[in-house]
């Protein structure tokens, strides 16, 4: 059979996948197979709040979820570009290595937990423990976040345009946190710091990506006070009250 000439070939860049008849394992296997084939955009219909979608995908592919997803969406992924038109369950982008996740909706607890790299943007609120143990990623929440945000954060950047709940940045090691609204309370070993010009530049850049203007918010910066790096007996009360 004659090979089709280039002009006769139809190069498929975009494909639509309906989750309804597939098991979660089948969906993820298909996602990986399609991405490996060089598909650029995969449109996912009827995600119906399922857990573990697009977990472990490591190809640079754009995946769009047309509806809410369950827990661990985009977990352990690398290089992906996820867009979710709906809400998310727990642990969105857990351990994300690199790539972008954009959520048009709210996210539940533990958003961006342990994420090493990449950017997670939530155009809504996030629940408790957002950015827990953040290890280098940028987590941007345009709404409010719950209690215990950035608990044991180690690196990276958490930006919240709205308010944050109690115990922000408890037992934080490093990294920067910016809050546009009110801070209910700081956790152990966290402190406020004035914003530098570089910080404002960073905020301007990150917020512009979601169509917001950094100067519209009264951003406060929270960093590690580094008072609990080494145990000192006189700090006993601080240790005792840490989580």
């Amino acid at each position, binding site marked *: 059979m004659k090979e089709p000439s280039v002009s006769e070939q139809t190069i498929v860049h975009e494909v639509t996948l309906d989750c309804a008849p597939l098991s979660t394992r089948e969906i993820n296997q298909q996602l990986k197979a399609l991405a490996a084939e060089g598909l650029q955009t995969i449109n996912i219909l009827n995600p119906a709040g399922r857990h573990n979608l697009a977990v472990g995908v490591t190809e640079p592919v754009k995946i769009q979820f047309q509806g809410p997803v369950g827990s661990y969406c985009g977990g352990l992924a690398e290089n992906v570009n996820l867009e979710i038109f709906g809400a998310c369950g727990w642990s969105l982008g857990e351990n994300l290595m690199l790539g972008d996740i954009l959520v048009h909706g709210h996210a539940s607890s533990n958003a961006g937990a342990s994420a090493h790299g990449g950017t997670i943007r939530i155009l809504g609120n996030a629940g*408790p423990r957002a950015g827990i143990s953040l290890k280098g990623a940028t987590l941007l929440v345009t709404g409010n976040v719950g209690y215990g945000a950035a608990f044991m954060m180690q690196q990276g950047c958490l930006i919240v345009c709205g308010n944050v709940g109690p115990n922000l940045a408890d037992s934080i090691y490093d990294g920067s946190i910016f809050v546009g609204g009110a801070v209910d309370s700081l956790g152990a070993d966290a402190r406020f710091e004035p914003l530098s010009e570089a910080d404002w530049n960073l905020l301007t850049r990150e917020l512009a990506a979601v169509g917001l203007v950094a100067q519209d918010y009264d951003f406060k910066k929270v960093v590690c006070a580094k008072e609990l790096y080494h145990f000192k007996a006189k700090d006993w009360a601080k240790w005792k009250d840490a989580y």
Partner: protein
Amino acid sequence: MCGIAGIIYRGSAKQRCLSLDLMKLLQPLESRGPDSCGVGLYGESMAFDQLKMILRTEEQVVLEDLWDWLLPFASGLEFKPVGQDSHSYRVVLWWQDPDYFDLGAFKRALAQNFPQIHLMSVGQQLEIYKEVGPVQGLIHKYGLEEFKGSHGIGHTRMATESVVDTYHSHPFTSGFDLSIVHNGQISNYYRLRSVLERRGMVFETDNDSEAIAHYLNDQFLQEKSLEEALHRLLKDLDGTYTFLVATEDKMALVRDKFAAKPAMIYESPEMVAIASEYHCLLNLEGFDSTAAIREPDAGEINIWSRQEFSLKRAREARKVVSNL
């Protein structure tokens, strides 16, 4: 992990089938709890001088003996087997003395005379059914396919701290028309249990969740409202918990201050439905995509009341049976 679900209808949804709606919410939660399941259904209220009980036996009992033993407690008696294995009975008692029914004494006497019989639930509306195995089997086994009611709660269990059997399954009850389903662990269980036992509560299992039911009943017996009891509970109960509690006219959802266990609330013009995970709600027949869906915050207490419920009748009943 465990799965919890609850439904309370608004006035406009009387024709809906409570057991099937609950089943729809619970079935997807079997992945969170494959060991056992149970439902607490609040059906048509009995007359104020009537009590409804669900009894379950482990071995065959001589029904005549049970009948004869029950008669002195009642001026009338209705006795119907429920389910397919003839181990369970729905008993309706007409109180002999409508001013006084000592539930505690009744339970003690039952345990003494028929140790093989368990009182699964007692009240004017509540019926509790629970079983090792999947939800559909439970509904089918007890012929609950057409159970209509005002509200109800359900549970799928993944056992973490006590044996897998019928009696260690949820819902748990402690008093009249009271049921709870719990997802989580109570870390001050032993202390709580000893406090409650000293106050006269009788624990039937070593499942930590049972303590929640007794704690609430103890509060009710001290004339505390559900609202007061739950606020107090948030301070007294240590551990991780998201639980649902149902009473004759209310359903409440409580989440601990760590928000460690999930729940989603769905509020439509027809009903309020709660499930551990969002996708269960999609399973509801006539799922309203415009309904408000939200997650309760850490330490949040939500209480919903039945709209058309006559509290007068319930209060009369409560007055009579609160002498535990």
